[in-house]
């Protein structure tokens, strides 16, 4: 007896899988293997010396802290945006919805230059601020927050849409206060998506170069981001050292995303009592 394969919506499973694998190999794995090829020319001792250089260490601190602050900001602000876009009807809603993707569409260098101009001491926004934003640590946060906010909005939005108004109404009729309803009914539902979105935003911020470089000021030990340290090594034609620092950023991002995915899988298992989501 030949077992009949279950009917699929999309025909040609083997073909589409083949194309997918080819695509992944060409676009993702091939450049990555180039990175590892460069790494292979280094000994562990050399690798260690490069990634623990004091200036690089300072850049990790600047990058990670800025990315954390930017992501925390986006977690709150992104959730708010998603909430407004899902729960309310108002004129210009479609426009606002479309605007949310602007940071993805705009070349990051353009974003960086624009933000630097706006927040400079003589800029449209900067002149009203009593403190320095452009060419300081705060500027890096602004640039990172700008480029990564869609990650939070776009991951939370669909989850919120699946959560009808009736849910919070039901909670209220059962005697929950607004804060209690949000904390115990709505928040647990959107929390995994919010965390995923924030995680994506954080990972993106770690690697952001174009937008940050124009606003950071790039002072050694103070406002140098890790991506700049990579570019600096490239300028010295030191591909291996550039790859070493890049690998660190890559592994950090991958580890973070993996952790979020694992946590999410556990969450869904708990939620649905089954293996998959």
């Amino acid at each position, binding site marked *: 007896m030949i077992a009949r394969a279950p009917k699929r919506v999309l025909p040609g499973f083997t073909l589409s899988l083949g194309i997918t694998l080819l695509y992944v190999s060409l676009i993702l794995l091939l450049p990555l293997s180039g990175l590892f090829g460069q790494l292979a020319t280094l000994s562990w001792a050399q690798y260690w010396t490069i990634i623990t250089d004091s200036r690089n260490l300072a850049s990790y601190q600047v990058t990670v802290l800025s990315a954390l602050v930017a992501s925390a900001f986006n977690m709150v602000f992104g959730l708010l945006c998603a909430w407004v876009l899902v729960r309310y009807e108002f004129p210009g809603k479609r426009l606002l919805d479309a605007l949310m993707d602007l940071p993805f569409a705009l070349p990051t260098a353009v974003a960086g230059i624009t933000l630097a101009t706006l927040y*400079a*001491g003589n800029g449209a926004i900067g002149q009203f601020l009593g403190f320095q934003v452009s060419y300081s640590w705060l500027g890096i946060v602004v640039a990172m927050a700008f480029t990564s906010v869609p990650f939070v909005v776009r991951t939370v939005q669909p989850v919120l*849409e699946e959560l009808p108004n009736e849910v919070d109404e039901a909670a209220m009729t059962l005697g929950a206060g607004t804060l209690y309803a949000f904390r115990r009914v709505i928040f647990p539902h959107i929390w995994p998506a919010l965390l995923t*979105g924030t995680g994506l935003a954080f990972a993106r911020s770690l690697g952001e*170069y174009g937008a940050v470089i124009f606003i950071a*000021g790039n002072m*050694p030990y103070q406002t140098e981001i890790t991506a700049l340290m990579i570019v*600096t*090594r490239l300028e010295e034609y030191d591909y291996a050292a550039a790859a070493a620092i890049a690998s660190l950023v*890559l592994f950090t991002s991958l580890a973070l995303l993996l952790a979020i995915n694992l946590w999410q899988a556990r969450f869904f298992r708990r939620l649905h009592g089954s293996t998959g989501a």
Partner: protein
Amino acid sequence: MNILSKLSTLRLGAGLLGAATLGLSLTAPLSASAAERTLMNASYDVSRELFTALNPPFIEQWREAHGEEVEIQQSHAGSSTQARSIIEGLRADVVTFNQTTDIDVLANAGLVAEDWQSRLADNSSPFYSTMAFLVRKGNPKGIEDWQDLAEDGVRVVFPNPKTSGNARYTYLAAWAAAARENGGDEVQTEAYMRKLLANVAVFDTGGRGATTSFVERGIGDVLISFESEVQSISREYGDDSYEVVVPPVDLLAEFPVAWVDDSVRRNQTEDLARAYLEYLYSPAAQRIIAEHNYRVRDPEVAREFSDRFPETELLDVNQEFGDWDTITRTHFASGAKLDQLLRR
């Protein structure tokens, strides 16, 4: 609606990939024409205007002499970035750089002949420049010389010597001037350099970025860049905003050119490439170059434009510091002098 979150994951993939492949470079804009051959000139970042002015007369000249239509493509980026692109496969026929080291890199990779510097006149550098200061109108901080840059309260703007050839010249010129001032006392020179570097307000990655910070954002008291760049800004904004100061002791910055032997062989453009670079030495081209505020080799043209270029003692970088390999090793490599001076 779950498609959206899938999309985000995809985008993240793209983002990571972007991080992994930083250093991709740009190529020249496309243009359609009936040209029989094209010549690609890979040049440094701020030479757009110069070569846009230089190319049409050459095309004209070539048409008259050979009856052939040629097209010249321009590609602009930092010259180290350009050198890297060529090593990675950009088939530029000629390079017109602002750093000798970047052509040496091509020579080491076997793409340009080892003796490239002796193939054309004047070290293969048809024009040159030096470092100059752009100060705000009236020169409120009284900046006349390299020593003045290290004074307390002076905010200096120049790009990062790690990422910009322009800034490497600034660093070396300041070093050479200080060494001359104190009779070659290394301890004093390093103390001076430390103060100068501590006065830097912003480290942009390239020359144009530094110009923007100084001019558009109003940061700093003095911008240090190539005289050509500084003169152009001063001319563009009129004399009532800025003043140009050329210090009494300065460094001669060569702008080397070469044809890329490997590319011209594949593209069969050697005659064209060679003629193009030789054309840069012709009086007509030298005049255009001088108009763009570069100092030129042709004595006749140099005299014509002498009022634009203040007299200054121009030191030879190789006489002061040795060959570029040595300079890179002692000053700019990882952990070398510059890194030590910046260390907290």
